[in-house]
């Protein structure tokens, strides 16, 4: 316990170094700007800026990327509440009550409550990380290849089935991601896989090309001529509109606390990211409310609760990502990819060997969140102006940034071509009702799943029962089976109900 506090102190020392502080500020600022822009989400923001961080020191790079991430979440909240345009999945819930509030002229209040809720949620999430991460790390040192493979399997399954849309399609996307991760030279045998004689593919698919193809190009194609030009009628928010009334605060503070707790619980289950946390907490809040009929028509609790739970689960999500190297969702997968490009493999060793990165990152979360509140409140007028930027001017400029971003990752035009192909496939997948985010999860974990599985098979002489003989691994495999059974049961019940309704 005490050593954690001491380490955190050290972390603040790292994060407050002038150049680190600058990168953290730059990160939250860029994240905020990109997040506010309609049609641009956290994924696009991080993957666009990823190539820029290749040349930086690892600490500065991860501080900046994390800053971009939570900055874009604050920014995205503005876009969702004022324009009803959720660009990051967890915000879909915030829109339900945020936009009606805007139409009643209470958009400013909703934004203020969102900011308070985000800050409360994030602070709790960070505290959870400080005390929980070292415990998990100690346990993780006991993990062998069997445990790691099974936990990864659980993470992949949960990440793909519990997200949005149909679970089967989610699993298909994750599997496709695993497959894409195996493109290139196989590290164990040296054989070239899926390269079809193209030399540029021997090193595998560039992660930036994949991310920007899926979350850049494919999204542009989906949104072009579709995204209605923003109507700024209700979106005039000034600083003095933001002061929440006493009554609003009285309603939202208990909601924030409940949301925070739900979010932090969700963070501890691998694969259940902020999206689930926000949905669960909204549903719970509606259920315990004395006036559930107000939800969906501008209930301030309906904004406070999902935002608090999103932010507490986002911070909590860093725990498995940093301690086990197993990301909970696509954003975490991208951050993990960034660390691996820097030559750092997240895992139980990270906290001991790279205390600067781990504790510096945690300290920077707090600094970044304070910076964001400072950025958001006085400058709200500016952000609202940014909202009025029409998409038709936005996406061509963004396309250039996509191209130059992919190019500069390896100084290779070939990768830009790969991005085009992935963009086409990504758009096809979107049209066919797939959500491509789990592809990235599979892509980042793919090589490590294969390596650990291979190792486990070598240790056990090729006996698959090995996974059931080790207790921790057996429990995790059991959870996987439970997850699949649960999903199938829910599906069968749903189908049965549909049949009854149809009859």
């Amino acid at each position, binding site marked *: 316990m005490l050593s954690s506090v001491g380490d955190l102190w050290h972390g603040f020392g790292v994060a407050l170094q002038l150049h680190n502080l600058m990168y953290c500020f730059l990160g939250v600022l860029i994240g905020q700007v990109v997040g506010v822009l309609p049609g641009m989400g956290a994924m696009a923001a991080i993957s666009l800026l990823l190539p820029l961080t290749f040349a930086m020191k690892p600490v500065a790079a991860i501080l900046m990327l994390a800053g971009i991430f939570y900055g874009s979440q604050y920014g995205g909240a503005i876009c969702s509440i004022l324009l009803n345009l959720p660009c990051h999945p967890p915000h*879909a819930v915030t829109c339900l009550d945020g936009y009606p509030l805007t139409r009643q002229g209470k958009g400013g209040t909703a934004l203020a409550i969102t900011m308070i809720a985000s800050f409360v949620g994030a602070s709790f999430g960070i505290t959870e990380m400080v005390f929980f991460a070292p415990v998990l790390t100690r346990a993780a040192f006991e993990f062998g290849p069997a445990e790691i493979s099974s936990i990864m399997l659980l993470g992949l399954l949960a990440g793909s089935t519990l997200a*949005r*849309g*149909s679970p*089967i*399609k989610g*699993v*298909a996307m994750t*599997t*496709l991601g*695993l*497959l894409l991760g*195996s493109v290139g030279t196989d590290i*164990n*045998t040296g*054989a070239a*896989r*899926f390269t079809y004689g193209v030399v540029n593919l021997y090193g595998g698919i560039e992660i930036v090309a994949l991310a920007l193809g899926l979350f850049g*190009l494919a999204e*542009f*194609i*989906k949104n*072009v*001529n*579709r995204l209605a030009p923003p109507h700024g009628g209700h979106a005039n928010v000034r600083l003095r509109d933001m002061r929440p009334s006493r009554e609003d605060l009285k309603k939202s503070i208990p909601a924030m606390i409940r949301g925070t707790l739900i979010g932090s619980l969700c963070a501890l289950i691998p694969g259940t990211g902020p999206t689930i946390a926000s949905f669960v907490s909204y549903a719970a809040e509606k259920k315990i409310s004395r006036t559930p009929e107000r939800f969906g028509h501008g209930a301030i609790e309906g904004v406070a609760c999902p935002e608090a739970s999103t932010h507490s689960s986002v911070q909590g999500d860093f725990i498995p990502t940093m301690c086990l190297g197993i990301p909970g969702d696509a954003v975490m997968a991208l951050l993990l990819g960034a660390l691996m490009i820097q030559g750092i493999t997240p895992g139980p060793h990270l906290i001991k060997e790279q205390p600067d990165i781990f504790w510096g990152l945690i300290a920077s979360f707090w600094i970044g969140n304070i910076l964001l509140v400072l950025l958001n409140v006085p400058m709200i007028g500016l952000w609202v102006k940014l909202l009025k930027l029409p998409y*038709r*001017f936005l*996406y*061509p*400029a963004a*396309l*250039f940034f996509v*191209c*130059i971003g992919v*190019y*500069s990752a390896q*100084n290779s*035009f070939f990768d*830009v071509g790969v*991005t*085009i192909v992935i*963009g086409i496939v990504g*758009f*096809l*997948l*979107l*049209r*066919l*009702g*797939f959500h491509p985010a789990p592809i990235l999860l599979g892509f980042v974990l793919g090589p490590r799943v*294969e390596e650990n599985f*291979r190792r486990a*098979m*070598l240790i056990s002489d*090729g*006996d698959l029962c090995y996974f059931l003989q080790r207790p921790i691994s057996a429990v995790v495999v059991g959870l996987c089976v439970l997850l699949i059974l649960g999903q199938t049961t*829910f*599906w069968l019940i*749903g*189908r049965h109900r549909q049949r009854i309704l149809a009859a």
Partner: protein
Amino acid sequence: MTGTRSRRELLAGGLILLFGLIALLEGRRLGTGTLFAMGPGFVPMALGVILCGLGLAIALTGQTSTVDPHAEPDAPDWRGAVCILLGAGFFIMLGVHVGLAPAIFGSVFVAAMGDRTTKLIEAVGLAAGVTIFGSILFGLILKIPIPVFEWR
């Protein structure tokens, strides 16, 4: 309504099945080996089998248990799609042969024309603005290895 939706599911399953078959072919070519001594094709083969199974499952069940907010029943916007993809293509072509500035101008201009309401003059203006900004930032300050102008 249900007719078109199940067609979509059929196509979706078919696409996944196709990916699975590609993986199976590659896995067979590389050799799967045994569980104890896995060949390079083991993982592609295993993933291929899973993908084929999932593809069939998607196509046959036509599951629509969750309401999908992104479901777009209307036809795709071909003009936008073609312009965006062409824009990215132009970036490569012009970037390889005539340098960074023309590449930026070409890609932004072509992409901007993908929007049906954008006027020609607006597209030119936007492209010119991004070109100046991009050439200075990436060409002169960050010095990426594409010359601002060249002829090859």
